[in-house]
C-alpha cells in the first residue's frame, strides 16, 4: 500500500462539507503557513519538496514561484488551471469533486506565498457541477474566516474567484488561459514575456495545475524535506494517475512513483489487469499528447530495466524508446485495439482544438487527420506514412504553443513503433475494415503473477 497524501481522506463520509473536512485536520496548513511562516519561507519549503508541476510539463513548482516578478505596487495573481481537457486525464476532476476544500486550502497557502490577493480558478466549462461544488466550498471557507480580509488576524487578504471556460482545450495552455480569463479569445500569447512577468492584465502571474496546488497542503503540513523523501530521484511526492482504457479497474489512483508500470497495470490495488483476460498491446502513459508505447517498451526500458511510474523512468530513452509522465492520463490499449484508429481519433481531436493562430498547427493538424482517416478507412497509400512523418516533423517545435508538439508526438510515436500496422492497413484495404491487426511482435510477455 503506497503512501497517500492527497486522497487519504477521499472516502470519508461528507468530506465535501467544511465541518467534516476541518474535523479531519483540514486547513492546518493555512494556520501553520500564515501564523508561523513568511511567504518566502513557504516558497522555500515548496522548493525543498522538489514538487514538479502536475499539469504535464513537470516544471519544478518552487522554481516557477521564485521566478515571479515582484515590482512595487503591482498586484500579483495566482491562477489555478482547472481546464483539464486532455483526453484520458480526469484526476483534477476527481480532486475538485470530492475534495474541494483541499484545493482551496492549497490555494490559500500558495496565494500567501505569492502575495496574490485575488486568486482565480479557471475551470473547464464542461465541469459545470464542479463549479457549483467549488463555489459552495469557497462560501463555506469564507464564512469560517479562511478567505476574505485579514485572514486569521494576520492582515493577509485573499479572495478566490471561479471562472468557467467555454470548452476549449487550448485554454489549458497557460497564456491562452490568461487571455480567456481576461475575456478575450483564447489564443496563446507569444512568449516572452512569460506570465511570471506579464500575466493576467499584464500583472505578474503564476499558473498552476489543480493537483500541484493541492500538493502544497501536505508539503506545508509535513515539511518540504519530509515530502521529498517520498518517491525517487527528482520525482518526489505522490502523483494522481487517472487510469482508463481496457483495464479491469479504471479510476483515479494515487501512487508514490516508486512502483513499476507492470505492477500498476496488473496489481489488484491499481488497475487490476487487462479486462476480459486480454493481453496488453500498447499504452499512452501520460495523457493523449505523450508518445504511445508498445507493451514491450512500456514494461521494460530499451536497456532491459524495469520501467517505473515516475518522470525519469517513463521518459527513459527519450522519444525513441520512451514516453512522458505528462498529466497522468494512463490509457491502456488491449490486443483488440487498432493503433491507426486510435491515432486518427487523437489527430481529429487536435485538429478540432487547434486555435488556428499559427500556420503549422492550423494546417498541419487538419492534413494529418485527413491522411489518417484515409489510411484508417483503407484508402491510404504507402507514401502517406512517410508523408505523415514529414508533416509531424514540420509541426513539432515550430509552433507558438505546445499544442503543435502535442499533436505531432502521438502521430510520430505511432509511426515509430507501429509502422507495420500502418503498412498492413495500406496493403489490406478490405481486411482492415473488418478485423484488427492484433499484437504482432510487440506483444507483452504474458503476465504471470509472481
Amino acid at each position: 500500500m503506497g503512501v497517500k497524501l492527497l486522497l487519504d481522506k477521499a472516502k470519508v463520509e461528507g468530506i465535501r462539507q467544511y465541518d467534516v473536512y476541518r474535523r479531519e485536520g483540514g486547513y492546518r496548513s493555512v494556520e501553520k503557513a500564515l501564523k508561523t511562516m513568511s511567504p518566502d519561507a513557504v516558497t522555500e519549503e515548496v522548493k525543498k519538496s522538489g514538487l514538479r508541476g502536475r499539469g504535464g510539463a513537470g516544471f519544478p513548482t518552487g522554481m516557477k514561484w521564485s521566478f515571479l516578478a515582484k515590482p512595487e505596487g503591482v498586484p500579483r495573481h495566482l491562477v489555478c488551471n482547472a481546464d483539464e481537457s486532455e483526453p484520458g486525464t480526469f484526476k483534477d476532476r476527481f480532486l475538485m469533486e470530492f475534495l474541494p476544500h483541499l484545493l482551496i486550502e492549497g490555494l490559500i497557502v500558495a496565494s500567501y506565498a505569492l502575495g496574490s490577493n485575488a486568486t482565480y480558478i479557471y475551470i473547464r466549462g464542461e465541469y459545470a457541477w464542479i463549479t457549483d461544488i467549488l463555489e459552495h466550498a469557497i462560501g463555506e471557507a469564507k464564512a469560517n474566516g479562511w478567505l476574505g480580509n485579514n485572514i486569521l488576524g494576520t492582515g493577509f487578504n485573499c479572495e478566490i474567484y471561479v471562472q468557467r471556460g467555454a470548452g476549449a482545450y487550448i485554454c489549458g495552455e497557460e497564456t491562452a488561459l490568461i487571455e480567456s480569463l481576461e475575456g478575450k479569445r483564447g489564443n496563446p500569447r507569444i512568449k516572452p514575456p512569460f506570465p511570471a512577468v506579464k500575466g493576467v492584465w499584464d500583472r505578474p502571474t503564476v499558473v498552476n495545475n489543480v493537483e500541484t496546488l493541492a500538493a502544497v497542503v501536505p508539503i506545508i503540513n509535513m515539511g518540504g524535506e519530509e515530502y521529498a523523501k517520498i518517491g525517487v530521484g527528482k520525482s518526489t511526492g505522490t502523483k494522481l494517475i487517472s487510469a482508463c482504457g481496457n483495464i479491469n479497474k479504471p479510476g483515479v489512483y494515487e501512487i508514490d512513483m516508486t512502483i513499476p508500470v507492470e505492477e500498476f497495470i496488473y496489481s489488484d490495488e491499481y488497475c487490476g489487469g487487462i479486462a476480459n483476460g486480454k493481453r496488453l498491446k500498447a499504452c499512452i502513459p501520460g495523457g493523449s499528447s505523450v508518445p504511445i508505447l508498445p507493451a514491450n517498451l512500456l514494461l521494460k526500458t530499451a536497456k532491459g530495466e524495469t520501467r517505473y511510474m515516475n518522470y525519469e523512468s517513463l521518459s527513459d530513452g527519450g522519444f525513441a524508446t520512451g514516453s512522458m509522465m505528462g498529466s497522468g492520463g494512463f490509457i491502456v490499449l488491449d490486443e483488440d485495439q487498432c493503433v491507426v484508429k486510435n491515432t486518427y481519433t487523437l489527430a481529429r481531436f487536435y485538429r478540432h482544438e487547434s486555435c488556428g493562430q499559427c500556420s503549422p498547427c492550423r494546417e498541419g493538424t487538419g492534413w494529418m487527420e485527413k491522411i489518417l482517416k484515409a489510411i484508417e478507412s483503407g484508402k491510404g497509400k504507402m507514401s502517406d506514412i512517410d508523408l505523415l512523418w514529414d508533416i509531424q516533423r514540420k509541426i513539432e517545435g515550430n509552433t507558438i504553443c505546445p499544442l503543435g508538439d502535442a499533436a505531432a508526438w502521438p502521430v510520430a510515436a505511432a509511426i515509430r513503433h507501429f509502422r507495420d500496422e500502418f503498412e498492413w492497413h495500406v496493403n489490406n484495404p478490405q481486411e482492415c475494415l473488418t478485423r484488427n491487426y492484433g499484437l504482432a511482435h510487440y506483444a507483452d510477455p504474458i503476465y504471470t503473477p509472481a
Partner: protein
Amino acid sequence: MADEKKLFKVTIDNITIEVEPGTTILNAARSIGGEVAPPAMCYYSKLKNSGGKCRTCLVEVAAGSTADPRPMPKLVASCRTTVMDGMIVKNITSERVIDARAGVTEFLLLNHPLDCPICDQAGECHLQDLSYEHGKEGTRFEFQKRTFKKHDLGEYIQLHMTRCILCYRCVFVADQLTQKRAHGILDRGDHSEIATYIEKSLDNDFIGNVIDVCPVGALTDKTFRFKNRVWFTKPVDAHRNCSKCCGEVQLWMRGDEVFRVTARKDEWGEVKDATDGRPGWICNECRFEKKDLKDWTIDGPTKVNRHSVISQGHYVGVQMPKDFLPEVMGGRGPKLLMDIHKVSEVNRPEIELSKIDGPAHGDDFAGAKQ
C-alpha cells in the same frame, strides 16, 4: 560616454552589425537587407503586437548572447525575438531554417486556392514571392481544399476568405487605426475565418488600409477588382491636400487613367511613413474616390524593386538589389555554371531594355544582332 547607449552586436548569417537594444532579429536582419532578411507574412512593423503567427520568419539562434552562448533549442520567430549582445543568428545558412520554412510555405499553400491567374493580388502577393522562393513544385495534399463564400465588407472592400492566411494584420489595423473594430476571427483551427459575424459593412475613414496590409488577395479593392493586372499599370508617386490623412499615395496608372490608389510602400511591402513623418496610412476618400488625375499632383515615378514583377520589361527607375551571397558564404560567390550572355541570342547586355518602347519583342533582338 555614460549617456551613450550601448549597441548590441549581432551576427546574422556571418554578417555582423550593431543595433539598438530591443531591436528584433527580423529588424536587425532587415537593416542588412537582401536575402538575409527572413520573409514575414504576418509581421508588420507599423502595427503593434503583430507577428509571431505565420512562422515563416523562423531563424536558428546558434548562440544566445556573449553572456550565455548556449544555442536556443527551438527555432525562434525572428519578428518577436529581441537581439542580445553577441547573439549569432543563422537564417539562410541554416539547413534547419530552410527546411522549416519550406514546411511553413507548404502549410500556408495547403488550403490556398492558388487562383493567381484570377486574383487581383497576383504580382504583388507576398505569398507568391514566398512560394517562389521556398515552395516546392507540386503539392502533396490530395484532399479537397477548404473554401468560403465571398463577402462584401461594405461598398469598397471585398473579402475572399478562401485566400486568407490568417495573419491577423487586418484585425490589428482595425484595432489600431479605427475607433471600433467590426471584424475579427471567428471559429478556430483550420475553419477559423475573418468575419463580421453578421454581414456588416466596415465603415471607417481608414478601414481601406486593410487592403494594403493584406499579404494575399483576401481583401481587395472593389473599385479596382478585375480592372487591370498590376504589372500593366505604372506606379506613380502623387500627393494631394487631404484633411484626414497625409495625402501621399501611389497612383497605379495606365496611360492617363488612374486605376488604383494605394499608400506608398517601402521595400518590405509595408506602408511608408509620409515625408513629414506622419504615418503613411491613407483615408478612404483618397483611396477610393479620387480616381481622376486632376485630383493629384504627380511627384514622379515610384522606384520599383527589381524583385517585383512590375519592374519586368520596360520600366525606368528599377533598383537593383545588392548581392549578398558572397558575403554570406564567406567570400565565395555562387558557382557560375554557364554565362548566359555567351550562349543566348536573347539576353544580350548591349540592348538597353528600358529604351525599348513598350514590352520587349523578338524583333528588337533580331535588330540588334546585325
